[in-house]
């Protein structure tokens, strides 16, 4: 048994060392430890109040992205938000690439804290070369926006 443990410790040590070195050298590398105000993938997490404050600040260009399906989007979304569903990212990304590149901050939301689509779209945006510091996820989602009695826009205005 001693041999089993010793050999497994050697494999573990090599694995950890290789992982850390590769992560340091790789362009896709991530921080070893995620900071508390950011997600593990590097994008920011924002509350509804923080987003509202950001929108109110002048001179800052914020792009709000609805990561739900086009059907859900047309039933009601945050005013001015564009639709980039996580299931059809490539198509919608190329449609909105100019707005995305110009934006100072891109906030992605979906149906709430654990919906996952917003994180997925945020991750895809980072993979497309958008700086993680420019990407944020609305942790309260649309339910948080509605709870704070904010206006809602209807229709699929996104499909121009």
């Amino acid at each position, binding site marked *: 048994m001693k041999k089993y443990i010793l050999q497994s410790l050697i494999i573990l040590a090599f694995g950890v060392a290789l992982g850390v070195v*590769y992560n340091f050298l790789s362009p*896709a590398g991530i921080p070893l430890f995620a900071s508390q105000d950011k997600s*593990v993938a590097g994008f920011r997490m924002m509350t509804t109040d923080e987003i509202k404050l950001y929108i109110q600040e002048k001179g800052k260009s914020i792009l709000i992205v609805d990561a739900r399906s086009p059907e859900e989007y047309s039933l009601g979304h945050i005013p001015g938000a564009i639709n980039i569903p996580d299931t059809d990212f490539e198509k919608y990304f190329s449609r909105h690439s100019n707005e995305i590149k110009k934006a100072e901050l891109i906030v992605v939301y979906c149906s709430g804290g654990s919906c996952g689509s917003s994180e997925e779209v945020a991750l895809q945006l980072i993979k497309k070369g958008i700086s993680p510091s420019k990407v944020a996820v609305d942790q309260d989602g649309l339910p948080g926006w509605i709870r704070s009695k904010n206006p809602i826009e209807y229709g699929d205005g996104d499909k121009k």
Partner: protein
Amino acid sequence: MKNNYEKTLRGITALSFIGWALFVILTREEIKSAIEYFLPISLKEGKNIFFVFFVGLFILLGILVFVFKKWKVFASFVIRIILAFTFLLAAIPKIVDPAGFALDISHYDIFPKIFINIIAITVPWIEMLVAISILFYVFDKGGILLVNLMLLAFLMLLGQALIRGLDIDCGCFGHSGAREAVSKAFLRDLFFVSWSILLYLFAKNGGKKS
């Protein structure tokens, strides 16, 4: 007594291969999509042929365990190949996309945030080394112990997600890899755990030489 133990071990080994073939049939849609994901574009049309071949192969392996005199050497070889290739297929997409894997780990909602990235960075490399170890008999004993420990850890992780009813992607084969529900991944891992335990038992009894 030893004879009975050998017979039982042989029976379990053969049944695990045939059971896996049945499991593959039950989860045919997921398996076909996984086959499609890993196949080059030119071969995608033939995914059904690959599926039938896959099922037939495991039934045949189960029968061969009963037929071969040196069944332990044969079964040990097959299990090493299956586990090693599975670990390699699982490791590579995670190494390429650590951010996606970190996100998948975070969805399990069990690890403290501070540790998630370091897990995402190191676990795929450990998986890769374990695969090499059991495939090429390099630090073989360590590889066998780790394959058991890792599969048991994955099983517990999937089990707790299943009990808590988490509707998440397993992330077993990377973030954008072959997607799989937690329940099916749990069942699949049960087979893998049984194979890794068998591998340990074969190694303990000198399976390579017998």
